[in-house]
């Protein structure tokens, strides 16, 4: 019975044997020429620990071995690891740290396997930390606590260098930041407190400096291009070496410094700001503006407000144009005056088309911009031209399209399209009832004097009006049309 015959191992003796194994491990890690562990070595080391823990008290050395395990790490770290780290700086220090951390993890793995028997019963009995935690904690308390400030500064300095366009060793940074994460043993506290906070502060300061220069030197489109580029690069930075949890915080800082702080200045730049872009139809720049400003809180409100001002301005200019043209034609010929107003209505429709396209293309159909467009049109659509209300103008316009020999000569398709657009513009007119009155009168004349060019179009516009304004609006008109057309046809 071999198990019972074994000799009592004295603590000193046993530890001397273990120490040999530990030294061998250290040599291997330091890269010294040392043969690898054989399975016999392994078993002997494991067995020694096992025996020392299962001997009868007072020779049960579990507590002492647990302490000596920790001491083994502390010795190694203070005698070899810390000195080698203290004598290096910047990037060299970072590389050394990565190497030492990797070594440390290997050492923990091996030693905790040798001492594994302690993990099985002793630590549970005394509610102590398991072996691998002890190992990592040693590194944390001795190395990390002392160096993390220096490390952080070195990393941030490298990041700023990369921002200025220099090439840096990204893998190195990834390894270093992994240490911050791993040292937390499941918690992100160390990464966040010892690195991320400072990194975010530095990022904000960096972009604040850049922005204050760019806002003075660059035009709005150029500034926006730079901003977009920066955001893209920072996002890439996260994927290359930062921890993914940093992404939203980082982007938020950059957006804040580049867009929120200087937002208004940017939009109101005299020759290249939002107004100018709208005036010059710079759709790409406007799309970019939308993309950027939609990311910051309340970012789109000023943009939509400028959009509304612009559209109102354009519309009001059309009204004025029509007024001027009308007042110039002092002739009493109603037709000629009417022509100017027809032109006005057509131009209003074109304006609507143009800016509706802006809302859907540049501004991705955002509700703020739909609202801005609507409000703008409501403002100038209700201004009359030379005495005629917009309701009347619109009705006259329809009349011209629908009657025979009307001033508008269009294909069937084009007519349909135009009627559709007229109905849309009608939505902005406040006194729709007035429109209904004028329309009905003109419809009656068309029907009575057989001047209606096309029955289908007549019906079609009524359907559209019904959809837009409800059945009440169109009931009389529909009645008239059915009366005349059905009876005439038969």
């Amino acid at each position, binding site marked *: *019975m*071999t*198990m019972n015959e*074994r000799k009592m191992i004295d603590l000193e003796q046993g530890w001397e044997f273990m120490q040999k194994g530990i030294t061998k491990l250290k040599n*291997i890690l330091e890269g010294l020429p040392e*043969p*690898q*562990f*054989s*399975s*016999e070595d*392994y*078993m002997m080391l*494991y*067995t020694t620990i*096992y025996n020392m823990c*299962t001997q009868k008290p007072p020779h049960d050395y579990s507590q002492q071995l647990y302490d000596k395990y920790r001491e083994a790490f502390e010795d190694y770290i203070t005698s070899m690891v810390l000195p080698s780290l203290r004598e290096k700086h910047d990037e060299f220090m970072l590389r050394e740290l990565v190497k030492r951390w990797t070594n440390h993890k*290997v050492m923990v*793995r*091996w030693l905790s*396997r040798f001492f*594994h028997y302690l993990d*099985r019963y002793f630590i549970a009995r005394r509610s102590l930390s398991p072996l691998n935690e002890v190992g990592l904690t040693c590194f944390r308390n001795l190395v990390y606590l002392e160096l993390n400030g220096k490390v952080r500064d070195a990393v941030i300095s490298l990041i700023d260098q990369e921002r200025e366009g220099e090439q840096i060793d990204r893998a190195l940074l990834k390894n270093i930041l992994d240490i911050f994460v791993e040292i937390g043993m499941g918690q992100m506290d160390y990464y966040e407190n010892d690195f991320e906070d400072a990194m975010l502060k530095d990022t904000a300061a960096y972009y604040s400096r850049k922005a204050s220069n760019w806002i003075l030197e660059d035009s709005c489109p150029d500034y926006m291009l730079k901003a977009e580029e920066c955001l893209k690069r920072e996002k890439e930075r996260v994927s290359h070496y930062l921890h993914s949890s940093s992404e939203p915080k980082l982007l938020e800082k950059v957006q804040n410094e580049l867009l929120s702080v200087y937002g208004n200045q940017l939009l109101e730049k005299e020759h290249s700001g939002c107004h100018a872009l709208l005036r010059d139809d710079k759709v790409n720049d406007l799309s970019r503006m939308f993309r950027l400003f939609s990311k910051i809180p309340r970012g789109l409100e000023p943009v939509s407000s400028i959009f509304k001002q612009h559209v109102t301005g354009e519309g009001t200019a059309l009204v004025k144009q029509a007024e001027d043209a009308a007042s110039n034609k002092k002739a009493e010929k109603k037709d000629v005056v009417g022509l100017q107003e027809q032109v006005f209505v057509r131009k209003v429709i074109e304006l609507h088309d143009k800016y509706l396209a802006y809302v859907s293309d540049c501004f991705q159909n955002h509700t703020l911009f739909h609202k801005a467009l609507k409000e703008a049109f409501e403002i100038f659509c209700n201004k009359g031209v030379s005495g005629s209300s917009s309701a009347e103008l619109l009705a006259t316009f329809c009349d011209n399209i629908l009657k025979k020999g009307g001033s508008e000569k269009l294909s069937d398709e084009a007519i349909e399209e135009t009627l559709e657009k007229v109905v849309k513009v009608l939505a902005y007119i406040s006194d729709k009832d007035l429109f209904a009155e004028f329309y009905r009168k003109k419809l009656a004349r068309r029907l009575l004097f057989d001047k209606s060019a096309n029955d289908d179009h007549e019906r079609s516009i009524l359907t559209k009006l019904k959809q837009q304004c409800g059945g009440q609006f169109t009931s009389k008109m529909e009645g008239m049309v059915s009366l005349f057309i059905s009876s005439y046809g038969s």
Partner: protein
Amino acid sequence: MRKEDTVKLISAEGFEFVISKEAAMVSQTIRNMLTSPGSFAEAQHGEVTFPEISTTILEKICQYFHWSLQYASGKETEFPIEPELTLELMMAANYLHT
């Protein structure tokens, strides 16, 4: 069975038992040793000496490994243990973390 899939367990008296790695790894201790990172010369050869475990016990243990694998795959059988062996077997089991 291929050589790479086996390990050799050697008792105190020098008896050699060759069993599959899968069986041997029922023991946590053996598993740890075989899966230690990198630097194991003998991991390829797969020989482990147990100077403290007698041949009879080691034989019983190997039987246990195989029984354990069978039990895990669902075939329920009883594992016979002679009473004289019990104490030693338990100590060995503790040592091997089985």
